[in-house]
């Protein structure tokens, strides 16, 4: 794939052209907060930002999503008895472009693709439909903030995985790094990049990587023994101040657990999937009354073990964390995932090799 270039002056017409055929979403200001929202022109878009408080996972995995519905629990017309047969929800009607996705959030989509769509039998149509109809245009981080630790999490400020296009702000223009066929069709009208822009983008990347504070070492996590890590002595201390709220899981770009509810109102019923959180005791409550995650410590441990031990074990070493730092900023009691990873890695480094 080639590198192209888009001058900042032309961004308005570039976005306008896309809007003729697709819906465009990007980080925008709404009531003084930076949130993901629909844009009607490039003027709505914010270019100087670190990242949104919530990840854009909602675009593919909405917090509440109707999966199917049925009507006519009672038949009134008397001719076409429908009973309670569920009807499929309509698929996404119009193609979309997500603009200014940060590389960490794109890496999260790359990971979630593998989880939502694993094989023929495990193929989440709701996720897959929206993913197929969406083009992801990333915006490289030239000035990462102090809570970012993407380079420790197999990612980086200019990381490309999961994206169709990566934009790099090189001053008066963006270097447009075309990464997929979807990206190619979006950038078809743009001229090829000059060497100067390509060189400046390389400089931006080096600068961004240098700016990042050193993140936690993860060298020993992949080969660590799961059960030993599970039984490590530090979990009680990590969990001591935790309130067991769902902030970390809901702001997280990779947390993807959900709860399915059937609701009936009058003659209409629907099946809704809602985000759920492993921080909640109800999440693992069995009908028998047994709860495998019965204590606060169990639940805190589950979250970190899932991201840094279980997912890597199943996904060729890929972490279930992309280092976006949202949970570090938003946790009401300042539980810092970087410190927990350090504890886990130190423990793994000194762990006796199981015989």
């Amino acid at each position: 794939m080639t590198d192209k270039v888009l001058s900042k002056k032309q961004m308005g017409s570039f976005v306008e052209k896309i809007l003729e055929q697709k819906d465009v979403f990007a980080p925008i200001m709404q009531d003084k907060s930076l949130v993901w929202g629909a844009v009607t022109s490039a003027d709505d878009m914010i270019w100087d930002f670190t990242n949104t408080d919530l990840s854009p996972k909602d675009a593919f995995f909405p917090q509440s999503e109707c999966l199917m519905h049925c009507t006519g629990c009672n038949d009134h017309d008397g001719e076409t008895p429908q009973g309670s047969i569920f009807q499929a929800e309509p698929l996404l009607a119009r193609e979309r472009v997500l603009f200014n996705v940060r590389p960490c959030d794109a890496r999260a989509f790359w990971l979630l693709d593998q989880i939502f769509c694993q094989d023929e039998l495990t193929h989440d149509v709701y996720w897959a439909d929206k993913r197929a109809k969406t083009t992801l245009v990333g915006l490289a981080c030239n000035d990462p903030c102090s809570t970012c630790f993407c380079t420790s999490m197999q990612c980086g400020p200019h990381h490309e995985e999961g994206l169709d296009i990566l934009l790099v702000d090189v001053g008066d223009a963006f270097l447009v790094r075309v990464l997929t066929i979807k990206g190619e069709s979006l950038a078809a009208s743009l001229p090829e990049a000059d060497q100067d822009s390509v060189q400046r983008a390389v400089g931006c990347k080096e600068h961004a990587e240098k700016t990042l504070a050193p993140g936690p070492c993860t060298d020993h996590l992949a080969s660590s023994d799961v059960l030993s890590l599970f039984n490590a002595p530090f979990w009680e201390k990590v969990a001591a101040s935790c309130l067991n709220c769902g902030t970390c899981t809901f702001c997280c770009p990779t947390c993807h657990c959900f709860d399915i509810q059937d609701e009936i109102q009058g003659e209409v019923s629907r099946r809704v999937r809602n985000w759920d959180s492993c921080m909640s005791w109800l999440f693992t409550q069995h009908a028998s009354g047994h709860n495998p995650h019965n204590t606060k410590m169990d639940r805190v441990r589950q979250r970190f073990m899932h991201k840094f031990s279980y997912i890597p074990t199943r996904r060729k070493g890929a972490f279930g964390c992309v280092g976006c730092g949202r949970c570090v900023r938003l946790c009401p009691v300042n539980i810092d995932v970087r410190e927990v990873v350090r504890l886990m890695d130190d423990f793994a480094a000194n762990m006796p090799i199981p015989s």
Partner: protein
Amino acid sequence: MQERTQKIRETARELLGQGKVDCVLGYTQGSIPMRARPFFATTPDEVDQLCWTGFCTGNLAKLLIGRTDRVAIVAQGCVSRNIVGLIQEGQVVRDHVVVIGVPCLGMLEYRKIEARLPGKDVHEVLEVGDNVTVSGPGFEEVIPRNFIKRDNCTTCMHRNPVISDVLVAEAVDETAGGDLEKVAAPWESFDAAKRWEAFNATFSTCIRCYSCRDACPLCYCHVCFVDESQPQWCGKTQDAADVDTFHILRAFHCAGRCTDCGACESACPMGIKMRRMTSKIEKDVRKLYGYEPGMDVNAKPPMTVFQPNDPEDFVK
């Protein structure tokens, strides 16, 4: 702040050293600027990690619930009132707790600081007297403390602890100076339709993480009504009906108990102003029952007692 920190550490060292308590529950410096983390010091060696800053915005009384060991707890005015509330409600035994009281200068809101310094990366905050010096790469800003205090701290009525075994500083002015009556005033002036609209707008960004509930020392039900599944009282979706049900019921559960500590607003990742609802309930309890929660361990909370002269007919 530094003096308060020193005195908290001295007191904690003494209590742990003499074996009077099993742990001291306070705060330690957060891993990033403008945060503090609840911290249990269990040995004299750990007491130097304790600190006191304007960012100790949680409510430590929450972490007292269910503990069976002897705990010393660092508490400013509002937190001490919640400890009183927990004693009244039989959740905490007074003799098991040592209260290290902190006369409070009002807690700071990191979002207000960030809003004043857009795009700036704050590295350090120094609190001296009435001013707060905020600095980072290439900038240093002196901000009057009153400009960046949490909303609830500007109308605080009891800044000094109402119970304490040790005080770490001289008592401060009892009130913060703001007009508490004004907090609920806009809501009272709305008609029902406008108020409903305002409620919906207030909670429209809620993600139902329940951090407001989980930070609140009033919320200690074994099973919260939103977590009941047999039967399920409250829907789980993001529909306004489900979200508002949670917030409205939660607020009512706080009637006659809420000390306006602001932990719910500080914990909320979306910056939702929960006090828009609780402030009216707080005012009603004060005006109709002449009661301020958490002031007296022997008082009977108004929602738990019946009086023959109650003006309402439905209870007779």
